[in-house]
């Protein structure tokens, strides 16, 4: 009995010693293996290209000076993966905010406000419990000028003994006053790998 326990413990220790140790990955210098699914590098590539192009095109520069106000509309996930599209839009929002040209409103959204506190804080109006000088006044919220929408597509193909997975990240920036798309972009991300790799 004791012998068995010893052998079991030794095996566990050996296997534990052989396993790859967990380590940090520096996104600025990551040459690690590529997955067939979309990973953070793909989102970063798409966001970098989109922001580069938006800024260079002048589409996000307000001719009247000041910053445009952008709202994030629907980003459809038409892939076989469960993707939180905020992974993409957040990078774009942060970069546009840093550029000093665009600020994103969190008070408006397709499924309600991103930050519900904007409206909740207004419910304090006329409450005797709160100093009314600090409560938000009526008519202070800013309506958006631009809307960011898009779609992430996935197409799978069999190429010889391998499979090819194509992702297309399509984005549009619509001027809400005219309904015209001021900027549009598409970033294709094509991966080819083993048939046994899964892309979902």
């Amino acid at each position: 009995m004791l012998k068995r326990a010893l052998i079991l413990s030794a095996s566990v220790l050996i296997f534990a010693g052989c396993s790859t140790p967990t380590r940090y990955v520096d996104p600025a210098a990551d040459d690690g293996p590529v997955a067939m699914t979309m990973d953070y590098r793909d989102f970063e590539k798409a966001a970098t290209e989109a922001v580069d192009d938006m800024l260079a095109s002048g589409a996000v520069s307000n001719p009247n000076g000041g910053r445009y106000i952008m709202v994030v509309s629907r980003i459809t996930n038409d892939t076989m993966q469960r993707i939180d599209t905020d992974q993409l839009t957040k990078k774009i929002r942060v970069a546009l905010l840093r550029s000093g040209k665009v600020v994103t409103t969190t008070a408006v959204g397709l499924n309600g406000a991103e930050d519900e506190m904007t409206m909740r804080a207004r419910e304090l109006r006329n409450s005797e419990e709160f100093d009314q000088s600090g409560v938000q006044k009526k008519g202070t919220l800013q309506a958006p000028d631009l809307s960011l929408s898009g779609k992430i597509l996935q197409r799978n193909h069999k190429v010889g003994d391998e499979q090819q997975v194509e992702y297309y990240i399509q984005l549009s920036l619509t001027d809400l006053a005219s309904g015209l798309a001021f900027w549009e972009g598409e970033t294709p991300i094509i991966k080819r790998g083993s048939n046994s790799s899964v892309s979902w």
Partner: protein
Amino acid sequence: MRFVFIAVLLSVGVFMAGCASQPEANALIERQELKVDPEVIYTMTVTELLEERLPQPGGESLLQIQFAVEARSDAELAWKVTWFDASGLVVKGVGDAYRKASVLTGQTRYFKAAAPHARATSYQLHLREPK
């Protein structure tokens, strides 16, 4: 006599030290605009590196660069532009990752990048081989 000689020598020394150019307090270290790793030089050549300031509708201008590489053999390339403001501080962009590209033998590929902010005045382009 000896005392006078030493006194004269000391005063000349002090005078010369006063005339010597003082090092600048905030001297910026010279930075290369283009950094190419030796492995990349072996397979390709940077044939051009252009920069211009793009006028923006708001009146500002944005630094944009374009570079071209010509490959002597099929090769992989990773590139990244780091942007700096007038003080030499890094202007952050979307991410820190290198962008990867493939270049075929004899092919010349052109790449473009725009600064993330109008305050970017200089840059460093780094070309390396993806591992």
